Structure formats: structure tokens, C-alpha cells
């Protein structure tokens, strides 16, 4: 069976005053039906841009999708007409954004913001849509739905709003949900609740989930597979457990050292990644992580390494010294 989503060489760029930013630089990955795939990376690595590109929501200007293919259920989303694309958005693919505070319209009731999706995609009348909205609030764990539907976003807490966003995303039984850092803006306790909710909902709806995060701990717990992004490219990808326990790219290792880990004795301290993310307008031909990499050798400057298989099945890394490093760190980490 072909994968639900097959992204090939997807590229997105932003034209800014300082030059063209290749925010997404030829990424390829797949998502199977019902699977949870995580995309991780530092701020500015292109995670949001890559997700928005799937739905063709890159703001233009200044951005545009500069190439690639996004096969969803066998259709190339980049070639759909605007009307066909609208049916995909909110219908086949639901999206949850990072900022629950600003992602809901302040002057419309919660109810209206849920029902309009149903009216758009299902042609539901007001009453049917209203009943479905009540049901959806139940699904995302909001009590007293009748009262909540009449309220406005500012009357709800952040966690509650994110539940509303999830309700909107799943309203039309999507086959794929994209969640862009759905918990970053929330309290730690709420974060766990929201992630559990998303996990159980995707299982229940048999939907696939792309979850964007910069927290590898989340990945290990919730994702089947993970793509690590750096400077607009995927530099490592593989089964979540393999990447978590045997990272093949120095960047992933650095990421892992920068977050607390549950599976290891408490580390004395966390290591933030040294150096700054690169300026995307002035990348040279070599590996973009080279300036911050403690394993860098001369050869790293010559070309950007391509993804290559590591020892584990389905696990790839874009590093020249992947094998040596993996062995070296097995002992060190």
C-alpha cells in the first residue's frame, strides 16, 4: 500500500530584503496511514514552513513553494486547483497551530468557528453542525459544551483554546492532522494532557499525525518515526526509538543533550547546542552544521552530505562520519 503522504524534494523560499531564504530545501519523507511522524529541529530550521507548504499556506508574498511534489492519497497537492485545495484543507487534512491565543478569531463565538468548517466541507445545515460541534467538544474533553459554544476565545484558557483548535482540526474526520508545536505556548501539565488527547484522538479516528516540536522527549514518547531538520533540510530520519537511542547525526546528538531525558539517570546539567543557527541567505556548499560540529573534518566543507542508511533499518543520516560517530558515542552518551 502506498503511503498516505509522500513528500518529495519539497522546497520553499522567502524573498526578503536581505536575500532569498531557502527555508525548506528539498525535503523528502513519507507518512503512512495512522502513523505519527515527528519533525524536530531548532527555531528557524524550517519546520513551520515545511508544514505550511503541504497545505499551500505559505504567505505569498514574500514566500513561495519553489519545487517538489506532495502526494497525498495519490494526488499531487501542489497541482490541485484552488477549489480542490480548499477541500483538502480542513477536510482531508486538519491543522493545529502553535499559538492558541491568536489562532482563533476574537470576534466570533467558539461555536461559529467550529460549525463553519462543517458547513464548508459537509454542507451541513446549522442544526446538524451545532450537534456535531457539541459532540466534538465532548471528544476533546470540554465540559459544558452548550455554554462553551456561545463563548468567545478570550473567555477560555490557553489549554482550552488548544482543545478547540483540535476540535476544529478533527471536525471533518481528516486522514492527516498536522500539529505545529501544539503545546509550546502552554503550561507543562497542560502540555501532557494535550499530547495525550492528540494521541488518543488520532488512534480513534485512525488518522495520521505530523507533530512538529523542538522537544525530543515528546518524540520518543508519541512518535513512530522522526525527521530531524536543520537549516531547511532533513538531516536525520528514522524510527523514533532508533533516532532517540542511536542518533546518527551530530546535530541530533546535540539536540538530545540539550533536553532532559527520562530514560537515563539525571544528567548533571543540560548542554545547550553551541553556536547560532546559520544565516540561511549565505550558506556555502558544505554541511550547514559544520561550524557548530565537534566532529567536523575538512571533507565536510566540500559538499552537503546526502542522506545515507545507518546500521538500523529505515534509519538515515546526512553525515559523512555517521558510522564512526555512532560507534564513538555509543560509549560516550
Amino acid at each position: 500500500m502506498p503511503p498516505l503522504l509522500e513528500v518529495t524534494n519539497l522546497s520553499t523560499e522567502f524573498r526578503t530584503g536581505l536575500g532569498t531564504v531557502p527555508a525548506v530545501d528539498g525535503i523528502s519523507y513519507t507518512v503512512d496511514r495512522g502513523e505519527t511522524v515527528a519533525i524536530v529541529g531548532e527555531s528557524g530550521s524550517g519546520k513551520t514552513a515545511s508544514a505550511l507548504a503541504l497545505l499551500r499556506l505559505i504567505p505569498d508574498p514574500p514566500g513561495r513553494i519553489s519545487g517538489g511534489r506532495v502526494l497525498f492519497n495519490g494526488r499531487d497537492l501542489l497541482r490541485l486547483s484552488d477549489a480542490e485545495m480548499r477541500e483538502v484543507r480542513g477536510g482531508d487534512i486538519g491543522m493545529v497551530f502553535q499559538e492558541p491565543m491568536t489562532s482563533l478569531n476574537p470576534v466570533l463565538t467558539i461555536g461559529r468557528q467550529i460549525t463553519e468548517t462543517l458547513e464548508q466541507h459537509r454542507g451541513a445545515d446549522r442544526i446538524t453542525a451545532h450537534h456535531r460541534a457539541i459532540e466534538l467538544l465532548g471528544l476533546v474533553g470540554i465540559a459544558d459544551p452548550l455554554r462553551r459554544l456561545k463563548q468567545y476565545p478570550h473567555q477560555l484558557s490557553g489549554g482550552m483554546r488548544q482543545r478547540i483548535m483540535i476540535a476544529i482540526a478533527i471536525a471533518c474526520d481528516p486522514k492527516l492532522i498536522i500539529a505545529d508545536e501544539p503545546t509550546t505556548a502552554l503550561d507543562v501539565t497542560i502540555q501532557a494532557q494535550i499530547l495525550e488527547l492528540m494521541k488518543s484522538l488520532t488512534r480513534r479516528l485512525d488518522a495520521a499525525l505530523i507533530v512538529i516540536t523542538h522537544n525530543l522527549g515528546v518524540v520518543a514518547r508519541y512518535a513512530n518515526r522522526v525527521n530531524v531538520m536543520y537549516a531547511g533540510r532533513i538531516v536525520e530520519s528514522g524510527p523514533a526509538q532508533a533516532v532517540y537511542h542511536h542518533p546518527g547525526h551530530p546535530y541530533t546528538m546535540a539536540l538530545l543533550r540539550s533536553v532532559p531525558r527520562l530514560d537515563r539517570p539525571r544528567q548533571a546539567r543540560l548542554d545547550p547546542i553551541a553556536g547560532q543557527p546559520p544565516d540561511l541567505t549565505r550558506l556555502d556548499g558544505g554541511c550547514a552544521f559544520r561550524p557548530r560540529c565537534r566532529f567536523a573534518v575538512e571533507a565536510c566543507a566540500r559538499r552537503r552530505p546526502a542522506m545515507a542508511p545507518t546500521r538500523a533499518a529505515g534509519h538515515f543520516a546526512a553525515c559523512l562520519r555517521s558510522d564512526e560517530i555512532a560507534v564513538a558515542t555509543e560509549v560516550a552518551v
Partner: protein
Amino acid sequence: MYRYIVKRILLMIPTLFGAAALVFFLMRLIPGDICVIRLGSGGTSFTEQALAACHAEIGFDKPLWLQFVNFVWGFCRLDLGTSMWSGKPVAYEIAARFPVSLEIAILATIIAVIIAIPLGTISALKQNSSTDLVVRTFAIAGIAAPSFWLGIISLLVVLDLTQIFLGKPWMPPIDYVPLWQDPLRSLSIVILPAVTIGYRYSAVAMRMTRSAMLEVLREDYIRTARAKGLINRIIVNRHALKNAMLPVVTVIGIEFAFLVGGLVVTEQVFNLNGVGRLLVQAVQNQDYTLTQAIVMLIVTISVLSNLVVDVLYAWLDPRIRFA
């Protein structure tokens, strides 16, 4: 919500009082004496006694503070007194002149809103297109051109066009009839001044609509609306416009207050006997009671239009309504 409105109404009182004090004392700072103007208007000489009698008649012999108290107290009872010049009740003088001004003001507002909101929205949606450029040029011209000049030009244009197409020049009539008596004639009187004022007014509102729309279109919730697969019409009308209207409503309200002041010039240009002209005459005649009453009327209208803006704001924005 009701508490909010009551609070706003109570806040009007100090504003009105301040305006009353200002106009009362400013009028008395202008050199001149209505009795001298009245008695000497025929070029004749007059005696000290006649002057004193005149002063007594209009109450100038009383101490200043008492005059002020009388004025404020009268205003509170809606008793505006009599005109010092004509001797007729001020309410009567104003009532005769008010309808034409009101009709111009309302028509101008309608014209402004009808032009501003669609054009401003289109301009924002097609940012930097040729449509946008034309709309913005139109708006800048409206703001830059003085209204008396626009008035004169529009009169000349109408004269020339009717000369060409009808064979004889046509001028709008100047003797006002109320809308309900003869709608066509009434409109033909006020349409040119209303367009002249409405153009400038719409230019200001249009620029605000455009910039507010541009800002709102960049908001996260618009991205959410797109991600839901909504059609553009709904994204613009339901999601963007309602949010963008907040600053636009404010501008429309503020401009309405200015518009009432602007009537002074426009009525002069179009030779209409409205409240604006009445104010000019009252000031020239040093007619304190009439001037005070008209200024207070204008201030009251401004304050009320502010109140309407606040109520509209609360109606549009639940964050205020439920605060």
C-alpha cells in the same frame, strides 16, 4: 454592557461643562459689543442711556459669574434663551437652520461609508496592484484637496456639464425644503455639498480600512481560516472585515465630529442657510447666546457620536462587551 454605556454617558458631563466654560469666556474675550453693533447699525449715533438700556435688556449688567451660571443652568434645562441679535428664541433660530445641515451630514456619512469600506477592502486585498494604486491616489487627492475648493470645482463642473448636455446651465437651488416635503428637490440641494464633504470623509475612512485590513489579513486567525478550507468571501467578510472595522468605526466617528465643524465652510461655499452659516453670523454679530448655543450643539453632537462609536465598538468586539 449597560453599565458601560451609563458610564460613558456620565463621562459626557465634564466634557460638556468644559466646552461651556470655554465658549462662554472665549466669546467675551473677543473685542466688540453687540449693543454697539445693534444701535449703530444704521450709521446713527446713540446715547449712553440707550447703550445701558440695551445692556440691561440682554443681561450684561449682571456680574459675569451670574451670567455663566444662568447660561449653564439654562443649558441643563434645555432653555437656550433668546438671540441677542434678533430677539427670537435661540431654539427657533437653530431649528430653522438645522435640518439642511443634518441632511448634508448624514448623506455625507452614508456616501463616505459606502465608498470607503468596499474600496479600502479591495485595495488591501489587491495590495500594490494597479487597482490599489488608483484607489490610493483617489484617497490622497481627497485628503489633500481643501473642501471649499472641491465645492467650487464641483459647482463649476455641474454648471458646465448641464450647459453642454441640457443646453442651459443648472444650479442647485439654495432655498432648502425638507426631505419629507419634496425629496427630489431636497436631495438636489444637498447632494453636491454632501459629495464634497463625503469625498474627503471617505478618503480618510478608506485609508483606515485599507491599513486595518492589511494588518488583519496577516493575523494568525486568518491563517486558521484558510487552513479550514473556507472560501475567500467568507474569510474576508466574516473573519477579516469584522476585525478590521474596529479602527474604521473610530475614524468614522471622529471624522463625523469634524464634519459638523466643516459645515461652516461648505455652507458658505454653497450658499446654504444651515447651522454653519448661522454660527458665522452669530460670531460676527457678537451674539453671545446664539453662538454659545450653536457651539454647545456641535459639542453635544461630537460627544454623542463618540458615544455611538463606543457602543458600536462594544457590539463588534466581545472582549469589550464581556469585560
